[in-house]
């Protein structure tokens, strides 16, 4: 699988550009992935979503139901789509180093 270099560190990504191993994530990667998803600058709200996803994934081994994420973070679905133009399942997961969701999403 391809390697990328960010902040002087080499990490492996998959064919879709998602981090190959969520454990290799570090904060500078979020800024790097954000640019590939059309986000110029990560704001506090972006980080709120990304941190929520990372915590949830660490506990449950999977990304949360989108409705639950909205409720727990207090950020509406509409706002999440504004924050992450490619959607929460793909854009936000990629930035947080979660694997790309498979199946009917």
């Amino acid at each position: 699988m391809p390697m990328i270099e960010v902040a002087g560190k080499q990490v492996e990504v998959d064919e879709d550009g998602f981090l190959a191993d969520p454990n290799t994530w570090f904060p500078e990667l979020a800024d790097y992935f954000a640019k590939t998803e059309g986000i110029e600058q990560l704001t506090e709200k972006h980080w709120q979503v990304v941190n929520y996803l990372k915590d949830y994934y660490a506990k449950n081994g999977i990304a949360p139901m989108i409705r639950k994420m909205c409720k727990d973070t207090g950020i509406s679905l509409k706002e999440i789509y504004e924050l992450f133009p490619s959607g929460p399942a793909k854009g936000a997961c990629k930035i947080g180093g979660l694997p790309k969701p498979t199946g009917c999403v």
Partner: protein
Amino acid sequence: MSANALRQPKKANEALMRSVGCDPVPDDKKVEAAIQHIDEFRKKVRSFVMAMESCVKCGLCAENCHTYLGTKDPYNIPANRADLIRKVYKRYFTVQGRLFGGLVGAEELTLEMLEKWYSYFYQCSECRRCGHTCPFGIDTCEVTMVGRQILYWLGIGPQLHTATAGAILKTGNHMGLTKAGIEDTLEFLAEEIKDDYGIDVEFPVDKPESDILYIPSSADFMLNPGTLKGAAMFFKYVGANWTMTSRMTEAGNFGYLMDQNRIQRELVSRLFEEAVKLGVKKIVWGECGHGWRAAKMYIPTMSDYVGSRRIPITHIHDEVAALIEAGKLKLDPTRNSRKVTLHDPCNYVRACGHCDVMRTVIRAVTTDFVEMTPYKEQNFCCGGGSGILFDDPDMYQYRIQASQKKADQVRATGAEILCAPCSICKAQLYPMVKEHKLPVEVHGLIDLVGNALVWD
């Protein structure tokens, strides 16, 4: 045409293909292997030979295919798409083709042609609308299935389908849900039901000595909360002793969409291992179109598990409709009073006889139901059928084009709710209503049932 100019979804790499049990054929052997597979199909599958021999190019399928209507690419005319195999069949397996080649429309198989197969058999959504209208009864969907199967055996498949098949082989569902994730989501949904309806609903998982095993689509756990909630509320309402299983939490079967031999079969076997282990008396299927076809039409002949022959499989719509007709459900349709239209998932209506049952349900739970034109068996695909929910930019653009016909249909109804009781349809329509600027919300059918149940 060079391969570079073809519209193709991202391919799975060799390691991913191997992870689902495929043994890719080296490039210099692919052509020979593919011809051998065509030979095997023609000797075993009569419907395939009929499709190869009978097409007269009348062109009726063209205007009946949403893919062609949306893209205007002549290879997306079902007759031409099937011709990508038919030309090769003619060249190697007919006398006139062997003798006169191109003069009679026969063509050598090449690696370039295989690239075309990959492009067009994964633009086809296997919706069977062309098969439904063909005056000769040619089911072009079966040709697409042959094409995808041969490509899989050669080691060629989309990243999306292969990764999804890999996830279910590993975890028991397409999303890769863990038991912790399943339970956390269900706990959250139970709280929502309590808040919204004031009732305590359980979502049992792996509960021994259950009577009913409910098989949801795993996508419901991420995207379709109403469908899971509606099913649980229905089971609670009728007092069912039911459970889901964390080891086979999937109504879909991506094996059916790329490898109908090993992967599809393995998923069927696993399902019955679970059903027998839990001792259930019945399996009830959730909202998933291709998965319902794979379950209803293929399981009886695909299951090697003896115990499975005694376990009936029904669809949750059938369960609800039977109780509506028996007058056993107290429903308040005014709770779903916004104008609603129904998108008929292709596999339900053209492959499973699942047409009137949806109308029985939707009429009982809504007050302002309007049909699309055309509808039932004549309905057009959402554009995502057979899992072609690709998100690489070129293919995403293709999905927008392929859903044009559907968008026109929905707009003409003036509905505010688009009921689409299938996970692939939902996953296609959530973004597509946005792309086509349709003023509708997308929901499942069981979602509307749950909302209309009257609790004493």
